[in-house]
């Protein structure tokens, strides 16, 4: 009896998975800030008149053979686990071409979008999980020893999924041996952290962030009372209610709430939803807010735009697109 039940459950699960496959998160290895600073891979960036130093990834990747060794060792085992790692180098190249386009886009919203290189990278590379890699080579007399620190960070919630620190053997051997030893040392612990994260995803939904931005063209402020379906609501309140109805177990946190800006963190969205034809499909943040956007347009009769920033972050602009 027990067995047949189990088989039935298994079959159901298979069908469920067959119908709808969640989007596979993308993963990218990025050298940690501390690493870049230690090795001088920094660039000066002018932000709002202030000069700040920020990591220069493309130099780090070009000039440091060790980090390439580490990345390829990690890419190897991730590929074996059906999660190919996105190449940071390729993304950086793409980023350069996009920079030009970005400059042209700034005019439309009227203000500059301020981003650090990491934010920009996260935005454009759209890696769901950033592997923040730091390592240091210590010299112990004639021996070398590598200490490492690898953090897997959920790019949207900025939460650490898995942290791995440790040291390699101390030995006078080629550095690549020690670096690869490090990768093999944390590999399984790291994978288990990922697995744990994915389990959480399937159980509690994906964690996303939704930000509402108000354009000048918008006839109301976010803390204004407006009439929707014949009832008076504060705009923010109505949004919260919608989220309560549509998130997994009504889970979300209101991060910021002002006249021009609303931000919702830890919004747990289901991995799957029914499309218009009633089929189960995997969804991301953009898909999740589509019905909301439609509803807002219809009920408030304003222009509403949604621009995704990766799979788990979406900006909804009210008053303009």
């Amino acid at each position, binding site marked *: 009896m027990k067995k047949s039940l*189990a088989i039935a459950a*298994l079959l159901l699960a298979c069908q469920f*998975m067959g119908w709808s*496959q*969640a*989007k*596979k*998160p993308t993963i990218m290895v990025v050298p940690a800030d501390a690493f870049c600073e230690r090795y001088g891979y920094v660039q000066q960036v002018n932000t709002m008149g202030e000069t700040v130093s920020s990591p220069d990834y493309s130099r780090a990747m070009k000039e440091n053979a060790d980090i390439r060794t580490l990345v390829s060792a990690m890419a190897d085992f991730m590929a*074996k*686990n*059906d*999660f190919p790692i996105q190449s940071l180098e390729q993304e950086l190249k793409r980023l350069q071409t996009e920079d030009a386009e970005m400059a042209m886009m700034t005019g439309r919203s009227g203000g500059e979008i301020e981003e650090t290189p990491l934010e920009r990278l996260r935005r454009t590379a759209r890696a769901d999980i950033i592997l923040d890699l730091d390592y240091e080579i210590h010299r112990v007399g004639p021996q070398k020893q590598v200490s490492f620190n690898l953090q897997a960070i959920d790019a949207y919630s900025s939460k650490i999924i898995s942290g*791995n620190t*440790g*040291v*390699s*053997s*101390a030995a006078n051997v080629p550095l690549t041996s020690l670096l*690869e*030893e490090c990768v*093999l*040392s*944390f590999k*399984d*612990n790291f*994978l*288990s952290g*990922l*697995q744990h994260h*994915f389990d959480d995803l*399937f159980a509690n939904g994906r964690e996303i962030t939704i930000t509402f931005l108000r354009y000048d063209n918008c006839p109301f402020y976010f803390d204004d009372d407006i009439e929707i379906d014949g009832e008076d609501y504060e705009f923010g309140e109505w949004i919260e209610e919608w989220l309560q109805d549509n998130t997994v177990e009504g889970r979300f946190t209101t991060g910021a709430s002002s006249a021009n800006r609303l931000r919702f963190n830890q919004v747990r969205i289901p991995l799957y939803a029914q499309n218009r034809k009633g089929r189960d499909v995997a969804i991301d943040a953009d898909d999740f807010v589509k019905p909301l956007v439609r509803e807002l347009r219809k009920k408030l009769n304003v222009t509403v735009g949604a621009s995704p920033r990766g799979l788990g972050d979406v900006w909804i602009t009210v008053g303009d697109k």
Partner: protein
Amino acid sequence: MIALTLLMTFSAVSANAQSKDRRKSFKSWDNYEITTEKVGVDGTKFVKVWGFGRTVDAATMAAKENAVHACIFRGLPGSATAMSTPPICPNPDTLASHEDYFQTFFAAGGPYLAYVSMTTDGVPSGTDRRKVKGGYKVGIYVQVMYDNLKRKLEADGIARKLSSGF
């Protein structure tokens, strides 16, 4: 004919008893020591593991079983220069829910042997070979083909793949 029937009955009973014994030992199968020696070559875990048995050979076999058991259910502790390794099946109910599978997997000469190879030079020796009450306790160095083992359990539907669900 009577003798034959008796024999069959007896063998059936003893087989049943053995199986029961095994079941019993499955539940209490936690009493062994294992340490990570160093980071193994790609896909392997290099550990020192202890086993108990009536003879040295039996203890050695038990140690090999323990090494595979640890990789599947217990995980491996870390050492100064090697991080700890989580178990392939972290869910504590896995053993109970797939008991028949593991009965076969860990049977004498069973499939588990394909995932473990002893790297002790010759026989367990010196302080790694101890006469204790009821038999021997031996410590051996082994390489567990962790990645292969994981893949096997994934393929057999015991462990979940990292990419399953996506």
